[in-house]
């Protein structure tokens, strides 16, 4: 099997610490580029490198900063991308912030523009003030999205202190405290080249990318190497509380179950290996080919919106299982039963081999999409893994690895549930 699926990954490390990766796909019309910093909403407390000052910043500032990066002294950078016929966007997650463009022409100009705007902070009092209104609307919008509320409440149950329990965008109160000075402090700390990665794929040659990036750096003085010190609170291994129920104006109840991973504190290949083992495990227990899925479906407790996911980061990890259900309480009991049965009976090696094949095929399918390749590469780069190693690591995983993971991860004392119920049932 060709592990690289006929694709070429070319990389270059620059003097100032920036890492650049290119996957040329010359038969595509498009170039898709992501410029990403290892800085997300959980990085709320840190040491400012120049002064040594330890600060705690308002919740939601990474996301606020992302919005403000599109401002330049000459105006809005959206306009420039539009003139170049490209589309641009950005998103902030718990752990990183990514800026991107997608374009089918003028690749070089677009790439220069991406580098330029992410490397040029320009914040004014007026523009920060104006952004508060827009972000407040965004936060309100999410308050009307039951799925998002469901996840936020689950994380609030699983974690005592870790900032993953706070909404990425912060709160209506916390964004009031964001000012120009703090935005610059965050920018100068986390938008350092050594904390960033540039990933370009599509209809462009690696040499062209490297040339543009290197030229863009000659213009400025090389920044000093800065060690970033992030401070996270000590998180106990227990869950904060077992359940949370919210009453919203929805059509049907929503249910989400989560398990807290306490096997944390490392990244790199071992982290990816743990993630894949957990994915395989979840698939064996609750996937479309499992007896449990069939039973829950036939009992009308779930439908094909039922899903599960494992999220693994260096400092925390959790899985989520759930979806729409007419009876959250019964679904909860059934899922607890499925987990404890599998703990006592174990899993079958036939299931393991089959699910492994499924994962190989799905990864190959993903390679049709530049968005998939780029997002996966960048997300894993920040976890110190090269996603091109995925198939090799998948091969390495043994039945014993997955069995071991079953017994360590699925501990019912470390699970919590979040439920959204219909508002009228409150009455």
């Amino acid at each position: 099997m060709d592990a690289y699926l006929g694709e070429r990954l070319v990389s270059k490390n620059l003097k100032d610490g920036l890492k650049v990766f290119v996957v040329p796909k010359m038969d595509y019309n498009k170039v898709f580029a992501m410029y990403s910093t290892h800085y997300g909403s959980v990085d709320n407390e840190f040491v400012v490198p120049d002064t040594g000052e330890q600060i705690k910043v308002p919740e939601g500032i990474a996301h606020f900063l992302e919005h403000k990066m599109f401002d330049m002294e000459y105006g809005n950078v959206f306009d420039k991308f539009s003139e170049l016929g490209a589309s641009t966007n950005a998103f902030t997650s718990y752990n990183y912030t990514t800026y991107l463009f997608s374009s089918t022409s003028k690749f070089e100009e677009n790439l220069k523009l991406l580098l330029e705007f992410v490397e040029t902070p320009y914040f004014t009092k007026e523009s920060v003030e104006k952004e508060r209104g827009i972000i407040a609307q965004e936060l309100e919008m999410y308050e009307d999205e039951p799925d998002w509320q469901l996840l936020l409440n689950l994380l609030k149950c699983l974690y005592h202190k870790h900032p993953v329990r706070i909404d990425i965008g912060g709160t209506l109160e916390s964004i009031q405290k964001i000012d120009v000075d703090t935005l610059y402090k965050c920018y100068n700390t986390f938008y350092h080249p050594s904390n960033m990665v540039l990933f370009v794929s599509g209809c462009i040659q690696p040499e062209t990318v490297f040339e543009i990036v290197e030229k863009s750096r000659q213009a400025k003085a090389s920044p000093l190497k800065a060690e970033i010190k992030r401070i996270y609170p000590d998180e106990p291994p227990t869950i904060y509380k077992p359940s949370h129920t919210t009453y919203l104006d929805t059509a049907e109840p929503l249910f989400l179950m989560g398990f807290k991973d306490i096997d944390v504190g490392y990244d790199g290949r071992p982290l990816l290996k743990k993630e894949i083992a957990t994915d395989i495990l979840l698939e064996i227990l609750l996937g479309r080919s499992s007896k449990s899925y069939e039973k829950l479906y036939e009992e009308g407790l779930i439908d094909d919106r039922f899903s599960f996911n494992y999220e693994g980061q260096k400092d925390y990890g959790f899985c989520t299982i759930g979806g729409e259900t007419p009876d959250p309480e019964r679904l909860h009991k059934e899922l607890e039963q499925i987990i404890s049965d599998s703990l006592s009976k174990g899993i079958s090696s036939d299931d393991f081999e089959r699910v492994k094949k499924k994962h190989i095929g799905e990864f190959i399918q993903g390679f049709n999409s530049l968005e998939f390749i780029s997002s996966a590469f960048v997300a894993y780069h920040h976890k110190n893994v090269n996603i091109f190693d995925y198939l090799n690591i998948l091969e390495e995983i043994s039945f014993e690895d997955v069995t071991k993971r079953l017994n360590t991860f699925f501990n019912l004392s470390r699970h919590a549930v979040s439920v959204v119920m219909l508002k009228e049932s409150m009455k």
Partner: protein
Amino acid sequence: MGNLFKQKALENNINIHIYHTSKFKTINFYLFVHQELKKEIATKTALLPFVLKRGSQNFPTQRSMNLFLENLYGTSTDSDILKRGEVHVLEFYMEIPNPKFIGEENLIEEGLKVFQDVVQNPLTENGSFKKEYVDQEKEILKRNIESLYNDKFNYVIERCIQEMCEGEPFSIYKYGSVEDLQTIDSNNLYSYYNECITTCPMDLFILGDIDENKIEKLIKEMFFIQRKDIKKINTEFSEKIVEKPKYVEEKQDVNQGKLALGFRTNTKYGNSDYYALAVYNSILGGGPYSKLFQNVREKESLAYYAFSKLEKNKGLMLISSGIEFSKKDKALDIIGKQVEDMEKGNISAYEFDSAVKSLVNAFKEAADSPSAIIQSRLDGIINGVDETTDEIVDKLQKVTKDDVVNVAQKIKLDTIFFLNKID
């Protein structure tokens, strides 16, 4: 003229479209069954793909089907329902990893065993669908229809369309209605299935790194169902004269107000001024360069989102925006002003050029995705249009500001829908 696909009609009137390309890592199969969008049958049409994927003669349960497909390296299959103007389309799809990356030759043949069985060989008992499956899928479809209420973003758009197109087939939700679900049982659904499968137009797409002759032979062998007297699906629409826009307000317990404005464009895909309309929509609300984004969001900070989009098969345009409740009138004023500016031709060179470039970019990007290539060809078939990406780009680049102003005169506001909070 000419699209990327080689087209052929099988003896049983299934049209096959084959595109050989080594660009992608997978082999893609899409089967579309075209049906009229009509209240009497819409809910049955919507229920069919969900019942069919529950089980077939050779794979009687979903689990047996999934066990088989997972062994084929995660070959994935699914079915859904689409609404393209007033055509209701059943969609069945399968994606198989290219065998050359796996080293297993027979993946395609094995995968197609499931694909064809789901479509033409459903599980039956006593001469009808399995009752249990129909009952379960009715319940799930009911919940699915009701869950639109949770998705306020799409809810306001759908409600606006319902109000605007009251009495027209287009007001029918693609998943049908809870009321009509009650009249469906395993018997009448099975008769309906037989009618659909034998008389509705069918298009089967195959895209990927395949041997064309081999795949054609395989398809002929596998899709053996007898079909004749294929009906013609009408895709014409009648123009509606709007006398006075309708205003509808609904109250729910929500944190954000949402507006949807429905317009009649009186131009659809296939008309000579369609690409002028596409540019019109792009300038008005198609991206960050657009009038709505710049004026509603950026200048006035009134909303997190404000955009417009076309329903190209029916000749409609929808504007939608999430706003503070108290700012509804101000938002409507500003939106109205943007539409007026379009009619008057108050369009800057920046807005015009960005809009054209953004559309060109989107059409070229679509050629990098198997599903986008196929979906766009499906739109072509429905509207009788046959064009390549290069031809589309050429037409877009020839659109002038005058063309846009001309098309603007045909666009009429029909309905305003506002989702308000409970007092």
